[in-house]
């Protein structure tokens, strides 16, 4: 079971969180024209990386904040966590 450092609450067990997918995907702006390909990339296409991956988790049974977590998908090592409003650098 992973140990995830919530930037708001501190280190908590994985079972307090739920997974939310790739954190680098940006939702296209509302009302803006967008090609089928770009929309499909947003909705469906994911890289499924092996290695370092920025992903979203929600601290569901805690502060309910969505957070960004940099995790190695092969080793489960977690390098960094950010608040929702912090930019991935």
């Amino acid at each position, binding site marked *: *079971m*992973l*140990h995830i450092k919530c930037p708001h609450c501190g280190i908590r*067990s994985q079972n307090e969180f*739920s997974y*939310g997918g790739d954190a680098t995907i940006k*939702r*296209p702006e*509302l*009302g803006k024209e*967008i090609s*089928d390909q770009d*929309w499909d990339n*947003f*909705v*469906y296409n994911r890289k499924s990386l092996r290695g370092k991956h920025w992903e*979203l988790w*929600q601290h*569901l049974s805690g502060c*309910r*904040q*969505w957070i960004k977590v940099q995790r190695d998908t092969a*080793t*489960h090592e*977690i390098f960094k966590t950010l608040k*929702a*409003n912090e930019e991935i650098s």
Partner: protein
Amino acid sequence: MTQSFRLESGGLINRDKKISFKFNGKNYFGYEGDTLASALIANGVHLIGRSFKYHRPRGFFGAGVDEPYAIVQLYRNGETEPNIKATEQELFEGLEAKSVNCWPSVNFDIGAINNFLKIFLPAGFYYKTFMWPKSFWYKIYEPFIRRAAGLGTASIKHDKERYEHKYEYCDVLITGSGPSGLASAYSAAKNGAKVILAEDKSRFGGTLLTSEVNIGNQSGKEWADSIISELKEMPNVTVKNRSQVFGYYDHNMLVMSERISDHLPKTKKFHPKQRLWYIRAKEVLISSGSIERPIVFGNNDTPGVMLSSAAKEYMKVYGVLVGKKPLVFTNNDSGYETAIEFKKNGIDPIILDTRKEPQSEIIEEAKNMNINIKNSYVVVAAQGYKKVKSADIAKISDNKEELGSIENIECDCICVSGFWTPTIHLASQSGNKTKFNEDIDAFVPGISKQNEKTLGAANGIYTLEETLKDSFEKGNQLSKKITNNENKVSFPNVVEKKSTVHDKFWCVPLPKGKNYKRFLDFQNDVAVSDIEIALKEGYRSIEHVKRYTTLGMATDQGKTSNLNGLQLVSKIENKVVPAVGHTTFRPPYSPVSIGAIVGREVGKHSKPTRKSPMHSWHEKNNAVFVDAGVWLRPRYYKRGEENLFEASKREAKNVRTNVGVCDVTTLGKIDIKGPDAAELLNRVYTNAWLKLPVGKARYGVMLREDGIVMDDGTTTRISENHYHMTTTTAQAANVLSHLEYYLQLVWPELNVNVVSTTEQWAGAAIAGPKSRELLKKLFPKSDVTNEGLPFMGYMEGDLFGVKAKIFRISFSGELAYEVNVESDNGYFMWEKIIEAGEEFGIQPYGTEALSTLRIEMGHVAGSELDGRTIPYDNSLEGLLSKKKDFIGKRSLSRRAFAAEDRQKIVGVVPLDKKTSIPEGSHLVKDANAPLPNPKLGYISASCWSVEHDNPFSLAILKDGKNMIGEKLFVMSPLKNKVIPVEIVSSHYVDPKGERVRS
């Protein structure tokens, strides 16, 4: 029965306390501190079971967790448990155990015929033989194999015992209380670290209990005792015996099973039987020691052949002789220690050493004691069926390939030592990249992935002095980093006998003309010949060889067999062992009971149960409940002898003619506040929300980004910046997360707060033509006329002194209202509604009637919004705003979603107006078309229409909009039904929606 193999004195057992027990129906006794194994051996019992495949007689091979043979069925306090190792089960008064895998008895086992058929039972036998004819598998092969195999029977009774889970955090977790565990725990504890020391046996000390050493002028055991008692006094240390750390998971979480009551005749009151510990450790020190490995020779599975360390442990810990004419077969000095122990107890052993001229302090001591030592000798085969009677031995050439002439010598046990295998299971589970150590012919931990270090014998360090030095140091270093405190302990003086190098000999060649079975895996009956066959048939990867032959796959997980298996594969393949590699070690290290894994989450605790504040009223009024997510909801209220069908029909009919009341507390409720609340709703819902006036409700549908309907419900504008959203019962949690996702990540500029208020409000839906009359009585001060409270209107009211929210919304399609009060007043509200409604013929209705009402009205619910449908499919396309963007809108223009013959919701009526239509059935054009019959759609929900008094269903049908009036067939292969039907509008009742507005 006398204990003819019990020594006069010695051992760590309590000879003042006799304990009686039963094995295979016979009475025996042992002493307090015995295991079932030691007590049986003391009584001269060596036949304990039958082997898995060939049903060969099985005795004892080890003295602890590594035991592959002595698995019994245990009976305790009226319960039975399989897969118990006799070498681990402590004796208690009244213990009863039976052999497994034998029928009719362990002495005469019919399955033993397999032994004579063994030529027919080679590796892969089951895969090859039972493949055809295919139809034989279920009826003949499988039942036969299941009966013949197996290691005991699981109880099908409810387990009365309690099992607990515990979460713990520590600085340093130490797994094993041998020399390395004690030393590292001691120095870590002295530095003030929070330490957990776990020992899987009942006694602390590991090999210190059996080795002839001296630490700081104390015997090994005395030193272990003093360290343990000091550790127990320290507030920062938890010391646990009977506790097996069996799994090493991500982020340094380890799981340990503590056996609290298994050694007692009965679990003490208020105690659990076992406790599972989830331990998050900053650092882990693995001090799990090593397991002696056997040397492979003919008939090496005969009862009486056992590990030499086990024979020594039985003498030194339990005061028990495993035999009176022992043969010690060794390739290293450990066998000598066992022989010396025999000699000290007045027994004359013979040592067969595969080495030519070994010299060391220990060997010198054995020679001085006049022990008969035969160098360059091997055991070719054990003789005897149910117990070793003699051994065929021979001289072996220097190249270890030629055997001299065979001699037969009498013996009653053969104690084998093939050197030591470090127990690297936990390190390997943690992700450690293990490496092969040539010096000890075994794998040791290499590069760590997590915060673990392996100490002592588990790391391939076999001298006490080096082990202690390293362990004191590691414990000190690691804890110092955590506590910033150093309190160095002085290193004690260590006296131990020096040993010399071992011989890398592991398998005795077969003598000419003999075809003895030479076993590698004792629990799964995998012999040398099986591995040879597997390799001949082309299996190369060790993982494949393992699965094909079942090597190392039994409950002992190959603790004694893995390395010899690897040696054999590498020899045949002409590779070095590290090139073959070992198979993956997976948790659990040793079997864990299902009860411990499940813990307290059994029965009604297996998931939380939510009840509405009106629950007790429903109970009193004969409600039959149904699970709705985690909620319990009344399905129907039973009157007299009614069944579900009759009751729900009555309840639904009463809503259509009089008035009914339904508990809708379970609906998800989300409170939304903030200046941008309307904007949020406008983006989340598909329809327009910016112009909804205060005091009005609106129905809305929300989509996922992929265009699929996520949920529906009504949201009411309570005041300028305050909305009350309702969701379906099932989607409540997901919708809240969905809103939070967009507010926190996508549109953080929106100034809105959302919070779940599902539990804060109790809700009652009042539905039916007489509901307004009832409402007038409930809220005499409020104007609830059609003008004062129109359809989709909202107002606050006073319910006999209780503040209430009144929504004019309808799921049943009738004139209807929903009244919400604070949860604490829910019961009061309900009683008042029932009381006031009596004159209008009010009846409570459950979820079944609720479904009937919405189905015949064509209102969609979870069975249509099933994660596969878009708004159009549910005839909700009228709610799609063309003027604004919303979540998921862009997806709706994908080609498939805009197809002309897109599926759409329709109504379905059987032509005979009688036959009920099973939910989930398929709709087809031609009932007699050849299979696979093209499917046009599926039945999503069925009911008995109370309005029309005939069956009615909703279906999602291809090209639904053009199918009205068509005649199709409903097919349900599950129920073996073919029903001719007519497709009608999904709005079967009041298609214009006049009633809700009346």
